[in-house]
């Protein structure tokens, strides 16, 4: 049972890495700026999931705080970038 659990955590880690690479492709290629912001937002989410999976992998509860911080900063940066795209300034 423990082996199956270990294998499934490995699968999840590898597929999250694949997701990060796919986001990176869209981030580099994206024809418009809004595509890049969308890719960056998804990238934050994927990194948060990756950190959570690392916590499960090492069996440690410390990683939870890192994931929470990543979610917080990701939200703020997405909002700031979207606002910037809309008007060209962040605080009106």
């Amino acid at each position: 049972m423990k082996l199956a659990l270990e294998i499934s955590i490995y699968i999840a880690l590898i597929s999250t890495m694949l997701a990060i690479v796919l986001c990176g492709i869209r981030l580099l290629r994206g024809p418009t700026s809004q595509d890049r912001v969308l890719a960056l937002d998804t990238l934050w989410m994927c990194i948060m999931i990756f950190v959570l999976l690392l916590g499960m992998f090492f069996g440690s509860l410390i990683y939870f705080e890192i994931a929470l911080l990543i979610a917080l900063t990701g939200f703020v940066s997405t909002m700031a970038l979207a606002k910037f795209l809309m008007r060209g300034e962040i605080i009106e």
Partner: protein
Amino acid sequence: MINMANDIPAWAAILVIFFLLLGSFIIVVGTLGLVRLGDFYQRIHGPAITITLGTGSVLIASMILFSSTHERLVIHELLITAFVFLTAPLGAMMMMRAAVYRGRRQQQRDESK
């Protein structure tokens, strides 16, 4: 090389494996949509499934795993769940509005040429 304090019961392990595999499938499909789909308005729907269902199932798996190995209720992942479910819609809405405004401005610029 997972360091576990105690052995995990079989039913919990099966649930964790199920949610992990579901989550990893959904995460890859969502970002695949980000790469494969045609224009921005279609692309914004791809990551939505990564953010809702992918994050949700990984968080549920984490809650079950830690609760069963630490022999107490470990549910602080609920904070991340609540935060993500409250903020992800806002991000999507702001990006959509920004894209619509930019598209409209681009159109006006093209017409005035």
